[in-house]
Every structure is written in structure tokens, then in C-alpha cells.
């Protein structure tokens, strides 16, 4: 006899576990209900701010029309001359990159690092490539060169302008979204499987208004939106504060990292530099088409990196390294040669941001976000409709307690182990789940004490 078994098992007071769907359903219902009630407001905020973010490319074109656009004209100043003119506007700054005007009606963006800028932010001067007129200067963010309005809405979407603490809201929403969606899917398909009619699963029911009809709308809409919501949850987690680290670790472990070009220059004598225009001309001759960004050598011994920056389909993400002393191309990295996982990561991020397929992408994301808001509102409405007709309580009935007692150990134990592993890698999910469980246990004790 092992140490765990020395006390005789209790006599037959233990309720027999239910089998199959009857055992699982109450547990899933409680999970879906409590997670939905708790995370619902965060999901609504993420959906609303997400819709606002999706349309920022168009918003930028309108708000910053003067900085971004110029009248078309023949000829253009060299990139080096444009950089010089921009430097006069930011004498304390250091040029880190230049984005040449991709068309005759666009400005050239000269990107500076200046003292006092927050991490990730740049000072960008917009230059008319035809006349050399400086059209303006703005604080921009990240490798996507987000202009201030996009940066502001992006921060609202990601952290509500509350810093790292605020990022917990979006991580909470992204961490729980897939759990709620999967639990809801299983509940919906499981509920309807007896009827064996595809229509009742795929389409909402008609009939008089009421909880039953609302449930059919909630279930059918959730089914249609599920794949998109799971995609948003997975890609959203890559930006999160804590789970994002796990995603990065996983990508490193599986060698899914985005490859980066080696910019080591072999022949640069100190100080020798052919300049932006020569670098751009060399890469253009080698087939690197606009739009591109020219990044200046980070330190001695390094070369320029010219990177394509188109993030709509077909993505242009090729890059070339150029020796600053000779203007020779020393290295080329093609997007076609990226590992599939790195390509998927690139496409996933750009689709999440509404950039990959242009307006179609924006419409789909808007529909998904609007659908998510409806799902949350319908969920709360159904809860409201479950409230008792009489009595003091103002809230609807909650799913019954003790659902876990009906689930066989062989089913529940792997679920618990899996939840613990997931909770570790998605810490916000893990900590909030633990909080749920502790609260549930405390409420259960209190209820028993009151009953006694």
C-alpha cells in the first residue's frame, strides 16, 4: 500500500460522476458565463478602440495631408540634399533613417533620434522632394512610422494611456477571448447536435422576442465570428506584456524568429560614406522597388540597410545591406526566403492591424469587432433575462455550483494540468483564473455558513 492510500476510501457517499456531455456542459457553462461577465467590458473597450485604430491610415492621410503630400512636379532633389535641409530643422537630432517619397505626390520623411523622445518615438521632418521645402515635423512612432493620431489611438487600444498597468486590460481581453470563444463554440454545437439540423446551428431562430431567440443570435453569430476572434486573440497576445514574452520564447525555441539582414561592411574606411542617394540608386538597380526606408549605419563597420516597407498584399519586405564606403550591395534578404512561420507572423500582425488587405481587411475587422460587441451585449441581456420574476435579487441566475464534482477525474485532471501550463505561459489568464477559483471557493464557504 502506498502512502496515499493508507486511509480507507470513504463508503459510498461519493456521488458517481456523470459521463460525457452531461459532465462537461455545466463546467463549460460556468466558465463561459463567469469569464464572459468578467471580461466582457474589456472586450467591448478593445473592440471599440480597435475599430477606431483600423481606420487611422485614412485618418492620417486627411489630418496630415500637408505633411504627407505635395503637388506633383518633375524632377527631385537628391536624398542627401533633402536630408541636409531637414537637418537644419532638427540641429540637435541625429538622422537614423530616410524614407524617400514613393510617388511624385508624396513627401520624403527624414527620421531623427532626438534627446528627450520616449523609447520607440522619432522626430520626423517631411520634405518636398521637388522643391526642398520643409512641410512640417511630427513625432512618429515605431518602424511603421505611425503619425501622432495613430500613435494616440494605438496607445488607447493597447493600454488606455495608463502605461504598462493599462496594458493588462488588453492582455486580459486577449487572454480570455479564446477561452470564451472555444467554450461557447462547444456549448453551442453540443446544444444543437441532437437536432441534427445545420440551420439551427448556423442561423438565428425567429419567433417572439425573448431569451431563446437572443440565445440563438448569440450562438449563431458567435459561430460565424469564432475563427476571426480566435485569430485576433492569438495575434493580440503577441503584443501583450507578459504573454508576449512567452510568445517570443516560443518563437525563439522553434526557430520562428523573423530573420534579420547582416549589415556588416567589409571595406569601409572610417568616415567614408557614399550618401543616401548612391545607396538608394544601387538598391534600385538591384531591383529593390519603393516604398523603402534607408537606415544609416548604426556604428563603424556597419553598412546601410535598405528595407522595403509595404505591408499590404503583396507584402514587400525585402532588404539589402550596402557598404557605405563603396556603395556596393553586401547582402540581400528576400521576404520569399523567410521561414513560413516568420511569414505567417508578418501576415498575422498586418492583418490584425487592418493593413494586409486594405479596405476589405478593414471591413472584415470592423464586422468582427461589431460582432464581438453584440455578442457581449446579448450575453449580458440574456443574464438579465434570467433574473427571477420575484425576490430581492436583481441579477439573473448563475450556473449552478459544484459542476466540477460531476466531471470524472480522468477528464478534469488533464484539463487542470493543461490550465496550469497555460496559466503559466499566459500569466494574466493564470492569475485571473486563480482569482476566480479563490473567490468561488470563498463564496461557497460563505453560502454554506449562511445555510447552516
Amino acid at each position: 500500500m502506498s502512502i496515499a492510500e493508507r486511509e480507507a476510501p470513504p463508503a459510498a457517499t461519493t456521488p458517481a460522476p456523470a459521463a460525457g456531455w452531461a459532465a462537461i456542459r455545466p463546467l463549460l457553462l460556468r466558465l463561459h458565463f463567469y469569464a464572459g461577465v468578467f471580461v466582457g467590458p474589456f472586450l467591448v473597450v478593445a473592440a471599440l478602440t480597435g475599430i477606431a485604430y483600423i481606420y487611422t491610415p485614412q485618418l492620417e492621410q486627411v489630418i496630415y495631408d500637408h505633411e504627407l503630400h505635395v503637388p506633383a512636379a518633375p524632377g527631385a532633389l537628391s536624398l542627401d540634399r533633402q536630408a541636409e535641409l531637414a537637418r537644419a530643422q532638427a540641429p540637435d537630432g541625429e538622422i537614423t533613417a530616410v524614407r524617400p517619397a514613393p510617388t511624385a505626390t508624396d513627401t520624403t520623411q527624414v527620421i531623427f533620434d532626438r534627446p528627450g523622445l520616449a523609447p520607440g518615438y522619432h522626430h520626423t521632418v517631411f520634405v518636398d522632394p521637388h522643391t526642398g521645402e520643409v512641410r512640417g515635423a511630427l513625432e512618429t512612432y515605431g518602424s511603421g512610422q505611425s503619425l501622432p493620431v495613430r500613435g494616440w489611438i494605438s496607445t488607447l487600444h493597447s493600454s488606455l494611456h495608463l502605461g504598462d498597468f493599462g496594458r493588462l486590460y488588453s492582455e486580459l481581453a486577449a487572454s480570455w477571448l479564446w477561452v470564451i470563444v472555444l467554450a461557447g463554440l462547444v456549448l453551442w454545437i453540443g446544444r444543437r447536435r441532437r437536432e441534427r439540423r445545420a440551420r439551427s446551428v448556423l442561423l438565428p431562430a425567429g419567433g417572439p422576442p425573448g431569451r431563446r431567440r437572443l440565445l440563438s443570435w448569440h450562438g449563431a453569430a458567435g459561430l460565424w465570428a469564432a475563427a476571426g476572434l480566435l485569430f485576433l486573440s492569438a495575434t493580440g497576445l503577441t503584443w501583450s506584456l507578459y504573454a508576449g514574452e512567452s510568445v517570443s520564447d516560443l518563437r525563439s525555441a522553434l526557430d520562428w524568429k523573423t530573420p534579420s539582414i547582416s549589415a556588416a561592411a567589409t571595406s569601409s574606411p572610417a568616415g567614408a560614406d557614399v550618401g543616401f542617394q548612391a545607396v538608394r540608386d544601387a538598391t534600385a538597380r538591384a531591383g529593390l522597388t519603393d516604398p523603402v526606408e534607408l537606415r544609416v549605419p548604426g556604428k563603424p563597420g556597419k553598412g546601410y540597410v535598405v528595407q522595403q516597407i509595404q505591408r499590404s498584399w503583396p507584402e514587400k519586405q525585402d532588404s539589402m545591406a550596402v557598404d557605405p564606403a563603396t556603395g556596393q550591395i553586401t547582402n540581400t534578404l528576400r521576404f520569399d526566403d523567410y521561414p513560413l512561420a516568420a511569414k505567417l507572423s508578418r501576415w498575422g500582425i498586418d492583418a490584425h492591424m487592418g493593413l494586409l488587405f486594405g479596405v476589405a481587411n478593414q471591413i472584415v475587422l470592423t464586422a468582427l469587432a461589431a460582432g464581438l460587441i453584440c455578442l457581449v451585449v446579448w450575453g449580458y441581456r440574456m443574464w438579465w433575462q434570467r433574473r427571477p420574476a420575484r425576490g430581492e435579487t436583481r441579477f439573473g441566475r448563475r450556473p449552478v455550483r459544484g459542476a466540477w464534482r460531476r466531471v470524472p477525474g480522468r477528464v478534469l485532471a488533464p484539463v487542470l494540468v493543461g490550465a496550469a501550463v497555460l496559466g503559466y505561459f499566459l500569466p494574466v489568464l493564470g492569475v485571473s483564473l486563480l482569482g476566480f477559483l479563490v473567490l468561488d471557493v470563498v463564496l461557497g464557504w460563505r453560502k454554506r455558513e449562511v445555510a447552516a
Partner: protein
Amino acid sequence: MIGELGLRWIFTLAFAAAGAFCLYRCVRHGTVAHRVCDALHALMCAAMVAMAWPAAMNVARVPQILFFAVAALWFAGMLVAGRGGSGRLSLGHHALMMAGMAWMVLVMPLAMSGTMTSAPASAPASGDHAGMTMGAATTMMGDAPAHVTIVAAVLAVVFLVAGTAWMARAIDAGRGDSTLRLRTAGLVANAVMSLGMALMAAVLV
């Protein structure tokens, strides 16, 4: 040694709780043989806690290896001595757990020849949500020998399955309980120890 601090603390608390339970039962319940089993498990928990922390990496290994080898023999002896029924499987599990401890103490320096490093969070990555960067990457520099990796992977899977099975039994045993019974707590302690072994073995992979 567990490199990640949060995981180290979770591991420590779990084994401290399991060890405290084994110690309590050793003092309060059972026959002499049972108490020896509990004492061995309490010591194993203490060793596991120590193994998770860098400071304990320099503790003499030979006495530990001898101790856990003897403990494995103890459980194997109980198994051979003919304890029937469902206990045979669990005695085999305990023997394997002690043998696994001896092996882990033996190979830990080889497996930990690399060091854990954390790369700084990348500058605003290609994702570009303002104020957000992709997470930092933690990587293990250096590789454990292949034989260590293979054995560790096998042990991790075996203890994961065993720990899950113990937990399933604990759930079934505690289903109707309104308070935690000694038997259920014992099953939970076994689950914790087995899953902890799986975790420590996984760290060596």
C-alpha cells in the same frame, strides 16, 4: 536549477506544501513502514526545493545520490516484498521518483552547463502598437548532452502522465468531501510531487 524566478517560487511553494504534509503524516499517522515512506518523501521535497535554487548547486552531490538510491531501493523492496493491489503501481512510481531524483542530482551540473540569459525587449518591433513592444526572449545558452536530454524528456513525460493520473484519483476521491480528507490530501501530494518531477525533468531537456 530553475532559471525563471516566478516558476522557481511556484515550484518551491508546491514542494514545501507537499513536504509539510508528508512530514505531518509521518509524525501523526501510519505504521513504521508508512512513516519511513513519508520521511523519505519529505526529504525528497526538501531536496527538490533546494535543487530549484542556484545557491544549492554547490551542495555535495554524492551523499544525495546515495540517499536517493537507497530510497529507491526501499520502495523497490516494498514492491518486491509483495504489497498487492493498486499499491504496486504507486510503489513502482515512488521507486522511479527516487531513482529519478538520484539521476537528476547526478546530471544537474552537466545539464546546467549553459546559462539562462534574457535578451532585452526589442525596440518597437514590426508590430508597432504605440507603447508596446514584443516581449523579451529568454534563451538557454549551451546544450545538455544528448543522453541527458533524452532521459530527461522520457522522465518528464512519464511523471506528467503519472502526476495527472494521481490528480484524477484525487479528484475522484475528493468528489463528495466537504472537507479535505487525509487520503485525498495524500493523493494531491503525490500529484504535486510527480508533476514537480516532470517540471524539473523538462527543465533539463
